């Protein structure tokens, strides 16, 4: 029994010991593991704390650096401003055309550049320091785009590069009144455009914009207001936003009122290699340049990125299609509409065409218009077009501009006939002629004899049949604004006007030939049925007035500003379907329209009345004081053309005498209320015997006695600051530069009148 027991107890004991041992081992290892993780955790935590400390220090160092820089830069700015001011003053002292003047000009240019660099650096540091607040103002986005494009157009044209505002799908026109920071947006666009101009030597630069449908990601963010979710999403998205930017981004995207506007600046220039794409946005990095002397501190794009991010968006370089050269920058920003009535959150829009954006902006759409989809299908169907709308013939040299105008007009339902080479113009005009004549004589459309399939002709038909019913969207508060889309009224068969609009680039070929082809065409159409818009370049006028013996039809329009934006819309409005029948000739002073005088321009639709029949200075008496006979003759002629009568004299002494005589004569007649003997005096400054200043002083003395004041306009050879001062001190009212011409005179006189000139 004992044996058994001992066996059993030993076994038990053994079992127990084993289990204990195992248990101990287990516990030990567990403890060991726990301790190890704990230790590791503590190490990590310590490291993290150290790291955070380091980051904080670095940030605060950078912050204080930025601050210090911002402070110091004020001083730099002041000194620069001082230099520029002194240069300005020195201009007065220098003789024009001298070496010194040239040097001064260069100094001024360098100082301006310095100022530019400084501002660039300052802006970067401001954004980094979080000190760049977003301003909010209401502005017209389409107008801003057009202004910026027009700003860079001349300098690009000098290089042979065309800058085109691509109307794209017209969504920006519809929602063009927005609230946001206009200045920053302008800076972004200017920066991108100036880079594009710098690095493009031929081809074109296109600027386009559209309203983007809200994407899924944004809606999720918008609907989930949960802050922890936000934070997680932030972590997951791995953005390296600045702190301020992060909140702004979320603010924007959560704001149900703002819409996403996408912009693209697309050029055919040097292009940026893929490896450099990320780094161009870093400050102080510059893509290596050719020896053409294209400089750039490379600061521009960094700022652009910061500003774009500040406005809630981002910027990237898009890939271009195969074989296309150049760079395409795309960025988006969020802007709120001006008249934000809607409070509905962003939602997916089932309809094609992005009208979701329009809807939640509180706009009403008059008709369903599936014709205006975002990206038109590139399939071109050559089919016989219906004789519904008035055809537009487009002869534009620049391919890209041609394409954008054509596609935009087609989206509006206009039938566009593109002439790719000027030699084809007569052929196309003949075809239209036949069509128009047909339409005029037959009520039903006769399509039979028109075969539009000529190889060199690229006729593009309008989109699907619903295009004929396209109606524009107009924002309620937009009376008189130029950016509503024209409203297309489908012409009924009865009032087929058979109107044809020709848009012709005057530099597309030898002007004489083109003009003659057009003149031929016109002979066979009544003038109300055809209108020609000539596109000319302001810097190199192709339209040779004298060469064609001035036989341009007075109703023709010559456009020297680039053909896009408001001007494109104006021309479209010439079509009867868009409301433009028998536009009155924009009437202005015949004298004011000197061809080479690039002064005031007036909108097409303004009807100012036939001012060139009336003479603005009818019945006025002027006194001309000048020692040069030629000048006197010139002034006399100018004045009489404006309807005034003129008395001439040779120097200041005679002028004073004439004034005295004028007054005396009134006194003798017994006039109680003496008025000024002349309505205006044109006084030359430099004369022998008595100069203009002296004469004016004497005349003013005389006038004081009778309480009259004759407006005196000084004629100067060149108006420096010192001279202008002298003019006003002597008592003269205004000054114009010699030689005198009608425009300058009228400008001076209207200026005086607006000031309430004289008794």
């Amino acid at each position, binding site marked *: 029994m004992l044996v058994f027991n001992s066996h059993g107890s030993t076994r038990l004991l053994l079992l127990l010991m084993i289990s204990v041992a195992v248990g101990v081992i287990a516990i030990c290892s567990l403890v060991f593991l726990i301790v190890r993780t704990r230790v590791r955790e503590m190490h990590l935590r310590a490291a993290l704390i150290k790291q955070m400390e380091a980051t904080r220090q670095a940030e605060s160092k950078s912050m204080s650096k930025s601050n210090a820089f911002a402070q110091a830069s004020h001083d730099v700015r002041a000194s620069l401003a001082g230099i520029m001011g002194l240069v300005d003053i020195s201009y007065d002292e220098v*003789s*024009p*055309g*001298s070496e010194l003047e040239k040097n001064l000009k260069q100094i001024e240019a360098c100082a301006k550049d310095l100022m530019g660099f400084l501002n660039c650096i300052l802006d970067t540091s401001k954004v980094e320091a979080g000190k760049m607040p977003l301003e909010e103002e209401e502005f017209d986005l389409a107008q801003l785009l057009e202004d910026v494009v027009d700003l860079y157009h001349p300098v690009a044209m000098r290089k042979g590069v065309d800058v085109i505002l691509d109307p794209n799908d017209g969504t920006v026109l519809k929602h063009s009144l927005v609230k946001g920071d206009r200045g920053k947006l302008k800076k972004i666009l200017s920066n991108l455009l100036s880079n594009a101009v710098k690095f493009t030597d031929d081809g074109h630069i296109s600027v386009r914009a559209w309203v983007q449908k809200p994407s899924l990601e944004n809606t999720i963010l918008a609907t989930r207001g949960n802050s922890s979710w936000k934070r997680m999403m932030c972590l997951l998205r791995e953005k390296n936003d600045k702190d301020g930017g992060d909140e702004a981004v979320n603010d924007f995207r959560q704001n149900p009122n703002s819409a996403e506007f996408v912009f693209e600046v697309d050029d055919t220039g040097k292009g940026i290699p893929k490896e450099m794409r990320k780094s161009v946005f870093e400050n102080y990095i510059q893509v290596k340049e050719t020896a053409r002397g294209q400089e750039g501190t490379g600061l521009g794009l960094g700022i652009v990125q910061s500003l774009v991010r500040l406005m809630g968006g981002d910027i990237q370089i898009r890939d271009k299609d195969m074989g296309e050269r150049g760079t395409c920058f795309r960025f988006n920003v969020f802007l709120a509409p001006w008249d934000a009535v809607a409070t509905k959150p962003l939602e997916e829009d089932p309809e094609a065409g992005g009208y979701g954006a329009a809807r939640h902006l509180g706009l009403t759409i008059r008709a369903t218009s599936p014709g205006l989809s975002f990206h038109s299908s590139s399939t071109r169907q050559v089919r016989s077009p219906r004789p519904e709308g008035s055809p537009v013939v487009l002869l534009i040299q620049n391919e890209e501009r041609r394409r954008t105008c054509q596609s935009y007009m087609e989206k509006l339902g206009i039938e566009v006939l593109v002439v790719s080479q000027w030699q084809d113009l*007569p052929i196309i005009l003949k075809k239209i002629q036949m069509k128009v004549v047909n339409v005029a004589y037959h009520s039903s459309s006769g399509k039979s004899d028109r075969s539009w399939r000529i190889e060199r002709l690229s006729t593009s038909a309008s989109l699907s049949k619903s295009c004929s019913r396209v109606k524009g969207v107009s924002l309620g508060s937009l009376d008189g604004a130029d950016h509503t889309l024209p409203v297309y009224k489908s012409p009924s068969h009865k009032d087929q006007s058979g109107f044809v609009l020709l848009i012709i680039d005057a530099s597309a070929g030898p002007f004489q*030939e083109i003009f*003659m*082809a057009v*003149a*031929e065409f016109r*002979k066979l159409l009544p003038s109300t049925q055809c209108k020609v818009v000539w596109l000319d370049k302001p810097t190199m006028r192709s339209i*040779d*007035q*004298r*060469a064609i*013996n*001035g*036989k*341009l039809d*007075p109703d*023709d*329009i*010559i*456009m*020297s*500003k680039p053909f896009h934006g408001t*001007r494109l819309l*104006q021309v479209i409005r010439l079509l009867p379907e868009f409301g433009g029948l028998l536009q009155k*000739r*924009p009437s*202005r002073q*015949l*004298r004011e*329209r*000197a*061809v*080479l*005088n690039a002064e005031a*321009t007036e909108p*097409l639709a303004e009807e100012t009345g036939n001012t060139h029949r009336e003479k603005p200075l009818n019945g006025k008496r002027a006194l001309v004081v000048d*020692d*040069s*006979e*030629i*000048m006197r*003759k*010139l002034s006399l*002629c*100018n004045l*009489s*053309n404006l309807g005034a009568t003129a008395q001439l004299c040779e120097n200041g002494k005679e002028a004073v005498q004439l004034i005295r005589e004028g007054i005396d004569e009134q006194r003798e007649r017994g006039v109680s209320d003496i008025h000024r003997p002349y309505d205006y005096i044109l006084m030359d400054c*430099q004369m*022998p015997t008595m100069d203009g200043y002296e004469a004016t002083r004497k005349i003013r003395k005389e006038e004081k006695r009778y309480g009259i004041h004759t407006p005196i306009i000084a004629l100067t*050879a060149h108006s420096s600051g010192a001279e202008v001062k002298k003019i006003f001190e002597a008592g003269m009212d205004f000054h114009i530069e*010699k*030689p*005198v*011409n*009608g425009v300058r005179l009228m400008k001076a006189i209207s200026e005086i009148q607006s000031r309430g000139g004289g008794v």
Partner: protein
Amino acid sequence: MRASLEGEKQQTDQSMDGGLMQMQRRLAEYRNALFKEGILDSQYLQLQELQDESNPDFVVEVVSLFFTDSEKLLNDLSRDLAQQNVDFKRVDAHVHQLKGSSSSIGAEKVKNACIVFRNFCQEKNIPGCLRCLQQIKQEFLLVKSKLETLFKLEQQVVAAGGSIPTVQQPIL
């Protein structure tokens, strides 16, 4: 195509001889050349605009005045600069006048030469002035002969029954 268009135009426009067309074209080309070469500038166009039915010979009159005026001034200048003690004030006054009148008819090259002259005058640099005077004389003779030719061409056109084209276009 081109030939036939031209032919048609001639038929419909000029019942008289096609020579008028050619004359007008020659006139236009000559005029353009003057502008392109910088001999005349936009002020000349202004003068042309001022000419109308009430002032049919305005341009010719003003230009003739300019010729006589300038010749006298140039003579005065030559004389003044040949003096023992040159009176720079007088010289400057003359040049100022010449500059004024040349700019008022659009004689661009003469005007520019005057500007340079004035600089030398201010520096009291006699050899420079003399050189400039030569330059001005040259430019003046050039513009005089060119304008005289231009007027002759215009006379021919008018005599043949044509009209001298004027400028009148609305520009946006």
